[in-house]
């Protein structure tokens, strides 16, 4: 297991350096002089320009610049935002819980519906229910989620008035953020109706964000189940006279879950990409909206730092999934 762990970490390090290199190159690839871009000031005098050049280290050779950037990143120094003048690192971690909360709710929703749907479809293979479920999954998989979000707003917020259109909680409520998770903070605040309001704000964004992963999980569960159900040991279990629910639910499901767990882990990248659209539409104050806003405001240190941190977050999750995978399935470890 230790060797497996080390080999995984060995691939993590070069990828991390590469990701850092891309975010380093980004600000230098922008049209215009990177010093003026990074200074974010107007009407720079030549003296000021030289001062900034030294301050940003542009007078150094490029490999030293990259080394300084890399060591800075490892110490949590990602520059400061032009707009808020706050360190990018602090901004990221202030907003990250909002994205995490939304993503967790979405993935829980996707698993709770997707896995049973896949199992039902596999056990009813070729029947009406299988076709109905898989057609629905294909529609979900093909859904432009930004449009789906607008449709849900039209129906549930506009016509029925059941859910709010934007934000994380009603403006009526105000309480300190202990954890950054609105569901927990609103409960802790003890204010009447705060928790309910937080839940109401979460419903539509979670549904929108869950749509594509749900469809993928349902399809993957079905095909993994079908593969397992044709194995000999399933026939043996059936021949022993075990109840179908036990054969499907215990013998088959346990082995079918391995590829499904991988898919769930791999959908983190999809979730973050989806979060960009979902957060923008629902004005959800998370990482996705922050990145889009920063791109439009030309707040380049934020774009640069955010890009890096998001990629690292995806890499860390993938690493954890890989390690868990090795834990569940000893066959993988040995290779």
């Amino acid at each position, binding site marked *: 297991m230790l060797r497996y762990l080390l080999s995984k970490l060995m*691939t993590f390090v*070069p*990828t991390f350096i*590469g*990701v850092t290199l*891309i975010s380093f190159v*980004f600000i230098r*690839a*922008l*049209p215009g002089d990177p010093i003026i871009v990074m200074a974010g000031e107007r009407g720079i005098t030549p003296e000021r320009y030289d001062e900034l050049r030294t301050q940003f280290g542009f007078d150094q050779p490029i490999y030293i610049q990259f080394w300084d950037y890399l060591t800075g990143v490892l110490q949590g120094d990602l520059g400061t935002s032009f707009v808020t003048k706050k360190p990018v690192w602090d901004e990221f971690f202030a907003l990250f819980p909002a994205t995490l909360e939304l993503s967790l709710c979405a993935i829980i929703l996707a698993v709770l519906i997707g896995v049973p749907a896949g199992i039902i479809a596999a056990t009813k293979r070729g029947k009406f229910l299988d076709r109905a479920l898989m*057609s629905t999954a*294909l*529609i979900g*998989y*093909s*859904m*432009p989620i*930004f*449009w*789906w979000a*607008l*449709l849900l*707003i*039209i129906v549930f917020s*506009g016509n029925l008035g059941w859910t709010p259109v934007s934000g994380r909680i009603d403006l009526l409520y105000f309480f300190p953020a202990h954890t950054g998770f609105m569901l927990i903070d609103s409960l802790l605040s003890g204010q009447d109706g705060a928790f309910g309001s937080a839940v109401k704000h979460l419903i539509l964004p979670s549904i929108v964000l869950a749509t594509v992963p749900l469809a993928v999980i349902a399809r993957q569960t079905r095909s993994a189940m079908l593969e397992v159900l044709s194995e000999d040991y399933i026939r043996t279990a059936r021949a022993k006279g075990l109840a179908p629910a036990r054969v499907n639910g215990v013998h088959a499901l346990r082995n079918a879950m391995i590829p499904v767990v991988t898919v769930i882990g791999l959908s983190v*990248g*999809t979730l*973050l*990409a989806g979060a*960009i*659209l979902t957060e*923008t539409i629902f004005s959800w104050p998370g990482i996705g909206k922050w*990145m*889009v806003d920063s*791109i*439009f405001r030309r707040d380049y240190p934020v*774009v640069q730092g955010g*890009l890096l941190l*998001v*990629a690292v977050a*995806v*890499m860390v999750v*993938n690493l954890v999934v890989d390690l868990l995978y090795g834990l569940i399935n000893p066959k993988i470890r040995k290779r």
Partner: protein
Amino acid sequence: MSDTVSTTPKRPSRLAEFWFYFRENRGAVIGLWVFAIFVALAVLADVIAPFDPIAQNRDATLLPPLWQDGGAWPHLLGTDPLGRDILSRLLHGARYSFFVGIVVVVVAATGGIVIGLVAGFAPRWLDTLIMRIMDIILSFPSLLLALVLVAVLGPSLWNAMLAIAIVLQPHYVRLTRAAVLTERSKDYVTSARVAGAGRARMMFITVLPNCLAPIIVQAALSFSNAILDVAALGFLGMGAQPPTPEWGTMLAESREFILRAWWVVTFPGLAILITVLAINLMGDGLRDALDPKLKRS
């Protein structure tokens, strides 16, 4: 007259065999038909579209579709806030979507196949280097990387397509390399090498044709992904710029009217959904027909 009556049944041609398996998947055939109809509409947009897609008409803003009260002939699907005919914009928008899909798939697949072949045949260090670079690209959420690339290159339809092609390309590299590695150890490759085939010939003529099945399936998938992503970039204001009748851009322009005029939002999205769904249905059929593991014979 009996000319060539052979006693042994002829092996069906590859295409016929493919069609046989493809046809078994009813969804795939429906998808193919829908796709064909959309292509025809896109090609004939100039002839069918009742109006100029960017012509504004101040006297006919936000007209509802024909079947609703207030709808007016010939604005079949109503008009947008600037009085432009939605049906005409959708028909012209279909052109952009197919154009985007084709360009992105061609660019991503060509680049990905060549790099994947090189990785599969290259010495170990080069292979590792290439695959690490692909891992790096894959660690960014695709839409985010595309957004940032467009921020660097400047927002336009071309740059959006280029960005998405770059983001989709590692999938082709991985698929091609994996297929090459399985094929390389087979006897026919060894015999080609013994016969003196050069490296380029080995790569493109001997091995590549046998790796195509998964790549074709991936091409169908990335065609629909490209349409979705370009529409998403357009929706975020980073793709095609107004007044281009691109479907995602149309959605972005009409967002503020969603609670007043459902049709300006509903139809462009429905167009995206139906197109992507048709392509994905075809993709499923292609996979069934091309993947030997799934063939029931």
